[in-house]
């Protein structure tokens, strides 16, 4: 094996410059070595369920703070719940990326309306949203509700407005949605199971 003198010095220079710097008091920072602090130490852990597929993996959601009145909880990390009998702490690439779902820039924050023919969203209040939507619903229902069909049979249906229900909302939301929607006589009613 041959090492040229020049090469040797280059290696030496590179390898030891740091040491020599330290020796001469020029170190950029003290050469302390420590691992990053464990970032979950005093966060609040909440048990949750992954909203994606129906394996329904158990999640541990970690938020800043301890629930004290003046602390606003913010999710900073999500990982698998090791107690969960199906996922046993594991997650898939979607579950492992859930933090970026919770804080996605595409999250909607305020009720909005796009008026007919326009090209932009306009922020409105919840009250305005409710009153305008229910006004439209009532006008449509009152105009198009079918109490009896051509044969005179009572059918009490409303076909001119339809409703697609969520597939990731809790069952409690599903239940109340069914209760409210069917009660209006709606039949154009479906959920993601159809597709």
């Amino acid at each position, binding site marked *: 094996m041959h090492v040229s003198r020049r090469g040797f010095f*280059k290696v030496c*220079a590179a390898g030891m*410059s*740091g*040491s*020599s710097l330290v020796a001469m008091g020029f170190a*950029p920072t003290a*050469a302390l070595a420590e691992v990053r602090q*464990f970032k979950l130490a005093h966060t609040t852990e909440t048990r949750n369920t992954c909203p994606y597929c129906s394996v329904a993996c158990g999640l541990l959601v970690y938020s800043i703070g301890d629930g004290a009145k003046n602390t606003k909880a913010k999710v900073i990390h999500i990982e698998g719940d090791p107690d969960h009998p199906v996922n046993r702490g594991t997650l*898939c690439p979607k579950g492992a990326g859930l933090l970026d779902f919770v804080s996605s820039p595409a999250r909607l924050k305020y009720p909005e309306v796009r008026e007919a023919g326009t090209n932009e969203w306009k922020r409105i209040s919840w009250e305005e949203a409710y009153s305008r939507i229910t006004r439209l619903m009532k006008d449509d229902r009152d105009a198009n509700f079918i109490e009896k069909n051509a044969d005179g049979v009572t059918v009490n249906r409303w076909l001119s407005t339809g409703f697609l229900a969520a597939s990731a909302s809790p069952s409690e939301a599903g239940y109340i949605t069914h209760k409210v929607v069917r009660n209006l006589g709606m039949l154009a009613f479906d959920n993601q199971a159809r597709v």
Partner: protein
Amino acid sequence: MALQSLDIKRRSATTTPSPQARETLEVAKLIDVSACIGCKACQAACMEWNDIREEVGTNVGVYDNPNDLTAHQWTVMRFDEVETDDGGLEWLIRKDGCMHCEDPGCLKACPSPGAIIQYSNGIVDFHEENCIGCGYCITGCPFNVPRISKQDGKAYKCTLCSDRVAVGQAPACAKVCPTGAIQFGSKEKMKEYAETRITDLKERGYDNAGLYDPAGVGGTHVMYVLHHADKPALYHNLPKDPTISPTVSLWKGITKPLAMAALGAAALGSLFHYVMKGPNEVSKELEDEMEREDERLRALEKEDAK
């Protein structure tokens, strides 16, 4: 926490010996390629836990995304489609990233004190506060793993989640892995577990199944179970017998005493350079030269062998 969370075994460019009295557990991550579905949960968990986000890239005709390791993507899946002799197909998927060598080339090559640390549990960790961005770790790495950040000019790579391991948790990638293709524990347990997997694979007709724990780097703290351990190159050119670049070996090995003598002059020169031009430019220049030197040395070695 500081120094107490994990004992340090070796520290780059440091002559002070590390404490050795305590015997801590050697850990390892085992990647069972035969159970890997390439789902990239490990990539996602790595980004999430380590607070790194690569930019959204493009598709270049393969599933590998991001297309290579970066300062923001410390592990990537490498996909290879291999046709078998009987006309069948194997989709070999290997999780690429730092192997946490027992004999770490990066650490040996690193000129900045305390920028690269090896803990007594085997984890090789980069401490970017101390990194001068010279890129020697890349040259020193037989697996081509470290990457320099475009943001801060410092080198980054997998830490084996040393922060998690320090408090008794598995690395994020190992915990998240849905099929259990990534396992974590003591190196001894991992080798035992690997044996059971290899036996199973042999029963399923993979006669050459085996463990990848290459001796050339003193063994690794990230090991693979391969169905074709005789042909690691099938898995996106996993080196069959990786060794540390001879230049780096030479420096840390035979020539160290000589180097000590030469230190004064060389270091002064280097310091001058450092102060005048800054670390990044130095790195580029020196790295290029070092690589050229490497090439030349390899050629010479070959001639010697003849």
